[in-house]
């Protein structure tokens, strides 16, 4: 008789329970909170819809017999696995209302991939401001997670009226070609479905991936056929030059260069050509089946299981009132398999929790801020003040550094659940070495080879937003999510207004002058901080990679985890892991 089991079963099959059902009282008093969450969700849904409708109407593409980028994604991606990213990203406030690319992480033929395509409704997929940064975030993610990058190219090249916003510079629209070269060099395949006319930048977008699959009407070329005039010796356009241009354009009959007749029939760059748009996507699916992926059984430590408590509770647990405390472990209990968590050093550095949980049966590390007040802590304050959750103190920083280092050794991907107001300040905090310990945590993160994802549950503030693997952790952070309750700023608006105007207030008062103009400025500043820290603004500016509803958090964590374990570059045999043994003692 054969017998099989998951590894280190005594540690992982049954881990300590966390969380509890919401009480009647909690349910009663959370109704208002639910309204506030839904209010933000409605704002975000409206914004998402605006981006989806950017450019020409989808009906026009359909009338031409074509598919929009959203149609292509719907056909390509396995049902229920799409996790969009950067939807509202538009850091330079383009008139198009978006950056012209649509991306996210999803499964194709059962395998995770980072997927990106040009929005062919928006200037036929032109290069527009902010787009290259969006693409670079996506190429970084494929590199971090070591999963294929799938492109749906349909790129008309530079928006010529605004070339200065896209063409030149270190992180401009040419940089993705080098990123594609980097991914290829690292052994990360890039599959490219090519549609439409792709001249110049579009041509390099077409040629730079690993596998090229074209629609029959597609082309890729160094330059387009549309540039009918050469240099005008006059240096300006007068009536005579305009006449010549009109005549040349009317007489212009040339086809686009780099068509299928060239790049399939002659150069053989294109592996496949399809006479239907769906055929191209079927070609990508065929190649996705060839992509390297371990069976999940290789790395699972238990059978996948849902949390014991409903995700809908999250809208009731996380207070919209940013000054309200809550039980962060109740949040964690709505995210992990069977609501279990094996906590590392619970009695040390109590302001943060660190430990191992399971997501879809895979081991995953979690680190998060606890909330509330911690009497008789931090130890270095000797009772001068109590610790408050959301802040970081000496023990918590040391614990996080230790834990991250051990996760690096055990190859455990980390999910950070941030709701932080900063690191403790003052002479006692400096003597307790908090400045160095914060940076030490940054070092601990960077020296691992781990993928991490960050969720800013509510507040991401001060340097604490950085040290808890915010998006600044360029080499480790795969992506960062916000929620309908996220606020990200260097400090609270009231604190900033006080810091900026306190001396001025003293001066005005001592001079016997009216202080109300200063108060107006302070209140304006507070309002400005509020406006520029809300979820939609955070998404637009790229402070986070996406704002997701609290009920969708686990879905993104599942995607992160599944992608991480699909084809890892480094493996720690589960039976050789140290952390579970250290936790058990």
């Amino acid at each position, binding site marked *: 008789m054969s017998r099989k089991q998951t590894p280190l079963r005594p540690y992982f099959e049954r881990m300590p329970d966390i969380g509890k059902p919401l*009480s*009647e*009282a*909690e349910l*009663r*008093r959370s109704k208002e909170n639910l309204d506030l969450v839904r209010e933000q969700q409605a704002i975000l849904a409206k914004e998402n819809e605006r981006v989806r409708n950017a450019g020409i109407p989808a009906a026009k593409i359909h009338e031409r017999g074509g598919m929009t980028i959203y149609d292509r994604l719907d056909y390509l991606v396995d049902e229920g696995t799409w996790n969009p990213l950067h939807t509202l990203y538009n850091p330079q406030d383009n008139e198009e209302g978006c950056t012209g690319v649509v991306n996210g992480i999803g499964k194709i033929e059962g395998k995770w991939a980072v997927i990106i395509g040009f929005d062919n409704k928006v200037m036929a997929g032109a290069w527009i401001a902010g787009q290259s940064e969006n693409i670079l975030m996506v190429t970084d993610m494929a590199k971090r997670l070591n999963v294929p990058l799938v492109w749906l190219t349909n790129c008309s090249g530079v928006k010529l009226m605004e070339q200065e916003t896209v063409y030149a510079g270190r992180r401009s629209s040419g940089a993705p070609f080098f990123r594609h070269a980097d991914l290829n060099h690292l052994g990360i395949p890039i599959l490219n479905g090519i549609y439409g006319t792709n001249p110049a930048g579009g041509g390099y977008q077409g040629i730079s991936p690993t596998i090229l699959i074209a629609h029959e009407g597609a082309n890729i070329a160094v330059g387009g056929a549309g540039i009918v005039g050469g240099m005008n010796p006059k240096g300006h356009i007068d009536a005579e030059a305009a006449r010549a241009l009109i005549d040349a354009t009317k007489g212009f009959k040339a086809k686009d260069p780099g068509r299928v007749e060239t790049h399939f029939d002659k150069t053989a760059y294109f592996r496949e050509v399809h006479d239907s748009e769906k055929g191209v996507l079927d070609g990508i699916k065929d190649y996705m089946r060839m992509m390297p992926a371990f069976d999940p059984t290789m790395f699972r430590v238990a059978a996948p299981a849902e949390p014991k408590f409903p995700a809908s509770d999250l809208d009731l647990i996380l207070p919209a*009132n940013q*000054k*309200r*405390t809550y039980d962060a472990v109740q949040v964690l209990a709505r995210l992990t398999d069977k609501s279990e968590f094996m906590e590392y050093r619970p009695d040390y550095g109590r302001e943060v929790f660190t430990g191992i949980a399971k997501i879809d049966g895979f081991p995953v590390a979690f680190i998060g801020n606890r*909330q*509330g*007040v911690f*009497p008789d802590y931090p130890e270095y304050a000797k009772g001068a*003040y*109590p610790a*408050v959750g*959301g802040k970081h103190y000496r023990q918590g920083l040391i614990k996080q550094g230790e834990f991250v280092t051990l996760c690096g050794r055990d190859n455990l991907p980390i999910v950070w659940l941030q709701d932080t107001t900063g690191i403790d300040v003052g002479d006692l905090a400096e003597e307790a070495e908090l400045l160095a310990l914060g940076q030490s945590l940054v070092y601990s993160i960077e020296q691992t080879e781990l993928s991490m994802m960050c969720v800013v549950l509510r507040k991401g503030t001060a340097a604490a937003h950085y040290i808890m693997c915010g998006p600044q952790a360029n080499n480790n952070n795969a992506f960062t999510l916000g929620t309908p309750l996220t606020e990200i700023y260097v400090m609270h608006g009231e604190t900033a207004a006080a810091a900026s105007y306190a001396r001025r207030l003293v001066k005005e008062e001592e001079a016997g002058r009216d202080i109300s103009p200063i108060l107006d400025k302070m209140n304006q500043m507070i309002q400005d901080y509020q406006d520029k820290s809300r979820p939609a603004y955070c998404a637009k500016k790229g402070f986070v990679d996406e704002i997701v509803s609290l009920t969708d958090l686990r879905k993104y964590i599942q995607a992160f985890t599944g992608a991480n374990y699909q084809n890892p570059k480094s493996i720690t045999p589960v039976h050789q892991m140290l952390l579970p043994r250290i936790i058990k003692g």
Partner: protein
Amino acid sequence: MSIEVAAPMQGKVLEILVKVGDRVSYEDELMLLEALKMENPIYAPADGKVVEIKVSLGATVEAEQVLIVLE
């Protein structure tokens, strides 16, 4: 049997959410204490009736100071 509800930390009484005579259930919010810029709810430790409120709005209270008595 009376139950004394005490302040878990030093703070300022920001809001009193019940009045004498109210019936409350386990984990109902009785009061909000502002401490360290955060609003900290004080919950009912059991079902009961509010028989005495020993602090006033805006008062500064010490840790362990009795805030409310339930019966």
